Structure formats: structure tokens, C-alpha cells
């Protein structure tokens, strides 16, 4: 089922997630409802343990909610099996991790090309090279992650997340392992690519200045939405 033109890209309806533990069940998400429009950028903030990463995993189809519904681009994630979710992620979602998670035995070019290879695209490497050139890493295409700096690795990871032109980008503390200056360069790149491709963005961050670069900030506390407000255009910074 595809989304109607007026439907939000992401609709999260009353999602609960309870995880088992040795000490008993833990209610990580307690009735989260949220929408994200196509092309919208949302900063997700909240204290440690509030459920931010878990919510991101639910949106990425990496965790199944205990209750509630998640619909992204017209697809009900609850109705998809594991392999269908993998294909869904391949075609619709991009993910940027705090720890980069580049594949260590693949070059920068191969890392960026892999989502397109998984989709069976014959132009995977051409596209990957194009993106790497566009972000200034054209000279590093054949380098392995161990030969790149932290900032370069994260830029490659961002290129990988965008190469398939996903509708939604999930970024989990993308500058958490980078110093201030490098982090700014990386986030400038991320927001630039987002704007160029019209990709919706959900950004988890502890950095409020970074959160204000998004169009909207959603606060999460104790597994519940604690606040949801748009950022005035004047304070939003780069589009």
C-alpha cells in the first residue's frame, strides 16, 4: 500500500515496547505517537535511557513494538517479515551510526556502493563514486576504513546512507565520536545532502545546538513524548 500524497511519511501510533530482562520487564516506550512529513527534519532529544535509540530502532524496522503501529511511506512495518524489512530498509531508510559501522574489509567506494549492490543496481559503483566525489572524498575511494580519520569515516557512512536516495534518514548521535570541528563538518554535509535530496531526517542528539538545526524538536522522557515543537526558522540555522 503506498502513501497518499497527503499522508505523513512516518506515522507512529501509540507504540509501546517492553523488553525482558533478568530483573523483570522494562517498558522502554510507553505509548509514543509521532508523525514526520516527507522532507521534514526532526531532532530527538532526551536524557539517557529515555528510549531515543529504541524509537529509532522501531522506525528502522530493527525492533518490533509490543503494541502500536508504525507506517512509513505507506508500508505497515508490523506486516513485514524480517527479509521484507531488510528490503524495506534497503529501499526506503538510511541509517547513520555513532560508531560509523563501516565494513572493515571493504574500501570506501565498496562501503558506499553496498546498498545499491544489495538492490541489484548495475550502476552501484558509478553512483557511489559520484557521491564520494561530491563530498570531497574522491581521492580516498580505494582506502579502507582503517586508513581514514574518524571524520572521513563518518562522511563515508553518510554517503552510504544517502546513496540509495532514501525517503527517511535515521542518524543516531552521528558526531558522538568526533571532535567539535570535525563534527560540524560532518553535520554540515549531512544537512546539505538532506536538503539536496529532500530526505526526511530523524536525528538523535545530546547537542541542543545541533538539534536546533532541525525544523522540529521532539523531546522524549521515560519512554513518552515530553515535548514536540517546531524550531523558529531564525534559530534553525542551515536548512
Amino acid at each position, binding site marked *: 500500500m503506498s502513501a497518499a500524497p497527503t499522508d505523513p511519511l512516518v506515522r507512529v501510533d501509540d507504540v509501546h515496547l517492553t523488553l525482558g530482562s533478568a530483573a523483570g520487564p522494562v517498558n522502554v516506550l510507553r505509548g509514543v505517537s509521532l508523525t514526520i512529513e516527507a522532507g521534514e527534519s526532526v531532532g530527538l532529544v532526551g536524557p539517557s535511557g529515555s528510549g531515543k535509540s529504541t524509537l*529509532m530502532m522501531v522506525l528502522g524496522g530493527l*525492533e518490533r513494538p509490543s503494541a502500536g503501529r508504525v507506517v512509513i511511506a505507506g508500508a505497515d512495518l508490523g506486516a513485514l517479515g524480517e*527479509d521484507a524489512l*531488510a528490503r524495506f530498509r534497503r529501499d526506503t531508510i538510511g*541509517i547513520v*551510526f555513532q560508531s560509523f*559501522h563501516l565494513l572493515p574489509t571493504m574500501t570506501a567506494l565498496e562501503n558506499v556502493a553496498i546498498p545499491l549492490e*544489495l538492490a541489484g543496481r548495475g550502476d552501484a559503483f558509478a553512483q557511489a563514486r559520484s557521491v564520494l566525489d561530491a563530498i570531497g572524498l574522491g581521492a580516498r575511494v580505494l582506502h579502507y576504513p582503517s586508513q581514514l580519520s574518524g571524520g572521513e569515516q563518518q562522511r563515508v557512512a553518510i554517503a552510504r546512507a544517502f546513496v540509495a536516495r532514501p525517503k527517511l534518514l535515521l542518524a*543516531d548521535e552521528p558526531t558522538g565520536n568526533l571532535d567539535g570541528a570535525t563534527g560540524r563538518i560532518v553535520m554540515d554535509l549531512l544537512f546539505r545532502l538532506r536538503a539536496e535530496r529532500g530526505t526526511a531526517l530523524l536525528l538523535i542528539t545530546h547537542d541542543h545546538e545541533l538539534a536546533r538545526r532541525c525544523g522540529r524538536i521532539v523531546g522524549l522522557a521515560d519512554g513518552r513524548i515530553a515535548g514536540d515543537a517546531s524550531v523558529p526558522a531564525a534559530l534553525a540555522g542551515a536548512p
Partner: protein
Amino acid sequence: MIFPLPLRLAMRELRGGIAGFRIFMLCLALGVAVIAGVGSLGAAIEAGLKADSRALMGGDVEFTLVLRTATTDELGYLEAAGQVSHVAQLRGMARTSDGQNRSLIEIKSVDEAYPLYGSVTLAPAAALADALAKRDGQWGVVVAPALMDRLRIKPGDAIRIGDATLAVRGGLVHEPDGISGLIEIGPRVMMASGALAATGLDQPGVLVNHSYRVKLAPGGDAAAMVAGARTRFPDAGWRIRQFNNAAPSLQTLLDQMTVFMALVGLAALVVGGVGVGNAISSYLAGKTETIATLKCLGASRREVFETYLAEILALAGCGIALGLVAGAAAPYVAVPLLPAALPVTARLALYPAPLFEAALFGLLTTLAFALWPLGAAAEVAPASLFRAKVEPLLGRPPKMTIAAVVAFCVLLAALAIVTAPDRATASWAVLGTVAAMLVFRLAAMALVWAARRGGRPRYPSLRLALANLYRPGAPTAAVVASLGLGLAVLVAIALVEGNVAEEIDMRLPERAPSFFFIDIQPDQVAAFDALLQGMPGVVEEGRVPSLRGRITRINGVPVDKARVAFDARWAIQGERGLTYAAAPPRGSRVVAGAWWPTDYHGEPLLSFDADLARGMGLALGDTLTVNVLGRELTARITNLREIDWTSLGINFAIVLSPGALDGAPQTNIATARTAPENEAALERAVIDRFPNVSAIAVKDALQALGDMVRAIGAAVTAVAAVALAAGALVLAGAIAAGHRRRVYDAIVLKVLGATRRDVTLSFLIEYGLMGLAAAGLAAAIGTLAAWLLMTRVMHAPWSFLPGVVAATVLAATLVTLVAGYAGTWRALGAKAGPYLRNE
């Protein structure tokens, strides 16, 4: 893109290096090398047997008669088919002219046509006919170099055999048909037919094998000739062989050794398979981040599975190739080491069939042990990237994968059974291996359970060691099982070897008589008995009539159509000793039925060896037909005996009732015992008085048997050591896999204030406990296996050899301690920074 995506991804993953796979490839290579090597060597020897078969047998077809020569008609039939050579073989005694030295000898008299194939080599070089010709009234002989050493003679000297004095004209370096048996007690003496007549040894009842070898005329058909002979002379009683069955005894020995060594090789492969599984589990556990990332990027379970399967198969291919190269080279290394007495020239070449078989074993082992961790790895949740980093573990694979694992294990077992010459033994060996692995696995789990329940010992080193035994991902079960199985094989073989050596070197000589005297003519019996009775310190332990016959029908069914178990086939290959007796022979016990009355006269009755009866499916009341000198004699089985062959008394598998063999040419066999210092005098007295009688010194026979057993034992132990080496590789793999954790543990402990001694001690205790558990279990299981083999299969006495077991247990524990210490030493030397910063 030329290659499919999983293959491309696999090739990229291989760029990470193969460091984690060295043990995996070595484990595979070792097992494959043993199977390929044993198979290639067997094929090389078999090729030699086939290539030289005509020369080894001495003709295209051989007709052998015992105790008689061919009739005119029989000879005419043979000569019509081609060229015929008559060879007679018997045992005798050779003495020096002064009577000081004597030796049992194997006499072969040949005619002018001999040899039909191949050639005889003499030293000094000479034509055989010239060397054997009668010159100046004296026949010539050529003798084996061993006889010249024993009698201290040289070419030109004279020796006495029977009634004749013969000139030694040269040393017999090589005879093409030199396979007389597996153990040669008497050195060879070759003479012309006329010389044999001169010795007077060929008397009625003396065991002489008359072989008529036929070299067929061009276009001759051996099978047709044999069929014609059986039709034309149904009661001839001859044993017929064609050239493709030139050496049945050697073939049987080769088959048995090949079976055993191949099974040990398979055990090594199974143990190695555990190493394969461990290495793959460890590698994939380290790849959970990559797998989760791939799944986040959209890779399906199947794509992940296929990627790593392709990688593992590529590396398995390298390991198998390495094993095949080593195995193919085995004949080139082993053949020069084969005893010179082996009368076959092995053919050095590449033999594809055993290599293909070994490769198949390697592939099945890889799949059987790799699919479980592969299947589990494909189930890695992509969400694990977001979770706190705990020790990466692989969970259970899906049911389909488990079913595939079971299927490949069954295929592996089936291949082992189907490719073995003795499928029954192979089946038991496979079952035994599986059972042993299960027992070891259960025992290892019990050790882990006990460690978990061990409470909190006071000493931190011990506490840490116990905790390491049961922590998630600990290799305890795998190390104990695989090292234990390798050790158990070695313990079992060492105990069997030790028992057999003790039997041959100590127990047998204690109860063995000093001599067997054979070919005592009926009219010499009284004088013989009187001679022995008159010699002080000599006891005649027994004397029985002796005849030769061949089993031709089993309960009315011809032997070539009867179903006979593998271990009973020896009884239907060739002539067997027969006797008749009024009372049960010493050294055997009636276990079924009843012995006939001492004054019995009636239809022929038969007492049979119980084991042979079982192997031939015979019971009381069934019949056995034997051919004695061309006459068929059918007797009803009235009792079965359990025979203690190790008593070395005079025993026969077939004993007939008195009167059944009246009138048949026969000789007598006697045994006598005396003190070692009197043996030479006893031998001299008998041979001087009865030149036709042969004296077999039992200690010489035991010596020859012991030498052969030790040679075989060395080969078997070498192969069994491979199984242990595979276990050691698994241990090394476990240590290597745990190295990073060990380093981390060591660094954190040092930061918290533990001394190097504390850390070293905890690791040593951990590995020491694993080694002790493996060794203790191996000692128990290996002892049980050896006991079963000795008592149930070989029917031999058994004694526990604590020294052997203790040595094995000690060695194993030491090896694990040393390995653990080596791993710890490396860990203690690592710098803290990289580990603490990354964590």
C-alpha cells in the same frame, strides 16, 4: 558484475586475512591428508600387486595340489592350455656338514620352465639352471642370505637336507614369486626337482604343496580354462588361482590395515571437524557487527548466509587441497620406508580415486560442522548494533539448518561405511566415534555444570578459573571433547599394542613349547616318542596325526557361494590342518553339543571352532565338506569348541571322529618343552635321527611375529597420533580464539591490582582443569575400547597397563598447561592502552 553478490562480498571479506582460519584449514588438511595418504599408499601397493601379479603368482593360472602330484590326465589338460611349470614347496631342515648348525628352511623345488614370469636374481650372478644342475654327482642349491648367516656358510660350502648333501652355489637375492606367507620362519632354499627326490623328504603324508603354474598360449582364456578344469576334474581337490588373486593373504592384511587406518583418519577428521566448527563460530562471532550492519543496509538472511558460506567453502577448499597434496605425496615418503621383505613393488603415481574420496570427506566434514554457526550467524539481529556490547555470541540456527547439519552428518557416516572394505567394522567404528563424542560432550557439560555450582572459592585465581570454564562462549566443551577423543584413540591403541606385545614377548613364551616337530611319519612315531622320553629334562607335551584338507561346502553350499563373515574367510582360503581324535584336544573347551565316545565308530562326525561356526552360520547338526587329497568327506557337526590359540598347543579348527580318515596319507605333529639351555641338543638329537622331520623353534616364530606386529603397530600408532594432533589443533584454536578476551582480562586485572602470578595461576588452573578432564575421560574411554577390542574382537587375554594410561594422562595435562601458559604469556605482554581506549 561477473560474480553474484554473495561471492563478491565473500571475496571482500577475505581481505581481512585468514589469520582466524589457519587452525580451521590445518584441521581439515590433517584429516584429509590421512585419508588421502592411506588410500594412496594402499592404491600404490595394490597397483604393484596387480602389475606384478603374474610374476608374483608365477603364471596366468595356478593349480595347487597338496600331498600329491597331478595325474597324467590332469597334467595333460594343463599342458594343452600352455606352458606349465611345476613347483613343489615344503618345510625341511638344513644342517651344516659338521652337524653343528641347523635351521628350519622353506624348500622350493623348481623345474626347467621356472620361472614363467619375472626372473631370479642370484649373487654371484649366474643362470638359475646352472646353479641348480647336478655336477660331479652333487645337486646345487641357492639359498637366502639369511640362511647363510644362520649356518655361517658361503657359496661353495655343502649342506645336508634330508638324505642329500647339496652344494650351495649362490645366494638367492630375489625370486619373483616370493610371497609364501606373511611371516617367513625358515629361509628359502631353492633346488631342482631331482634334488628334492634325492633328499627323500617327499614322502606320503608330508605336507608338500605341488603348484602347477600355466602360462597360457596366446589367445588363451583363463576363466574358461579354470571352468573346464572344474568340470573335467570335479574331485581333483586342487586350489585354483588366477593371476588377479595372486596374494590373497597379503591382500587381506592390506585391506584390514587400510580399514583401520582409514577409520583412525576419519576419527581425526571428526576431531578436526570440531576445530572447524570452533574456528568458524569464533570468526563469525567476531563478525556480528559486520553482519548486523549488512542487515541494516538491507541484506537478507540468505544473502548473509551465502556470503559467509562462500568464504568458508573457499578456505575449506584450500585446506582440503593442502591435505590432498600431502596425501598424494604419502606413497613417495612411505614406500621407501616399507620393509624390504614386502614382496611387492608399490607403484608410485597419482591415484585420483582415494584423493577424490578424501576431498569428499573433507567437504562433508566442513558442511557438517560449519552449517550450525553459519545458520546462527545469519540470524544475528541488526538491532545488536544499537545494544551495549557484550561478549558476541551466536544463538541457535533455524530448524532447516539444524536438519541440514544432521543430514550432512549422516552422509559423512554413510560415506565412511560404504567406502570401507569391511562395512560391519566401519559401522561399529562410526557408532563408537559418535558415542565417544557424545560421552565427551556430556562429560564436558558436566564439568561446566560442576564449575558453575562450585560456589565461590576463597582464592581469586581459582574463582576466576572456574568462572572462565562456564562463561558464555567458553570453549570448555569443545576442547574437552576433541582433545579427549584424540587421546582416547591413542590410549586405546597404546593399550592394545602393550597387551599384544606383552602377550608375544612375555606371556606366550612362558606357556609356549620349545619346538613343534612336524612331518613325523607314522612308522617313526614309536621311535620318536622313545627318543624324547629318553632325554632328561624333555617333556613331550602332545602328538597328534596331521592331515591337510580344504573346506569345499558349508552345509551343502559350495564355499564360493556361501555367506562367510569377513573374519572367518581365512578358513576357506586354501588348505587347513585336520586331525582326528578320540578325546577333546588339550587347549580347547566344548561349548556346545557333546564329544563322541572314545570308542566311537560310525558316520563321520566333526568338532568345529565355535568362532568359525558363527562366522559361517553353522550350528550343531549342520554339515561341513572337506576335500582331502581329492576325496570329499562330509561330516556332521556334533560339537563346537572354544579354542585358546594363545596356548600354542597343538590345536585344529577341524577335528574329525576316529575312523573318518583311515587310510589317508598323514604325518604326525608333536610338541616338546625343555629348558632353553637344552633346546639345541634336543633339536640336534631329533634331526640327526629323523632327517625328514622339521623342527620349528617356537621362539623364532614368536620373534618373527613380534617383529611384524611391532612394525604394524608403529604404522598404526603414527596414524593414531594424527588424531591426537587434530585434538591439539582444536586446543590451539580455542586458545587463539580466546586470546583477545584473555588479554583484556589480564589487563583489567592488572589495573585492579592483580599480580602477574595471580593472573598466570588462574589461566593455568583453567587449562589444567580442562586438560585433566579430557585426559581422565580419555583414559576411561580408551581403556574401555581397548578392553572390548582385546576380549571381544581378538579374544585375547587382557591386562590393564597403568603405566601406559598414566603416561598418556600426564602428557595430555602437560600439553594443555604448556599451551595455556604460552597463551597467557602473550597476553601478559600486551600493552594496556589500545584495549582500554577501545573499550
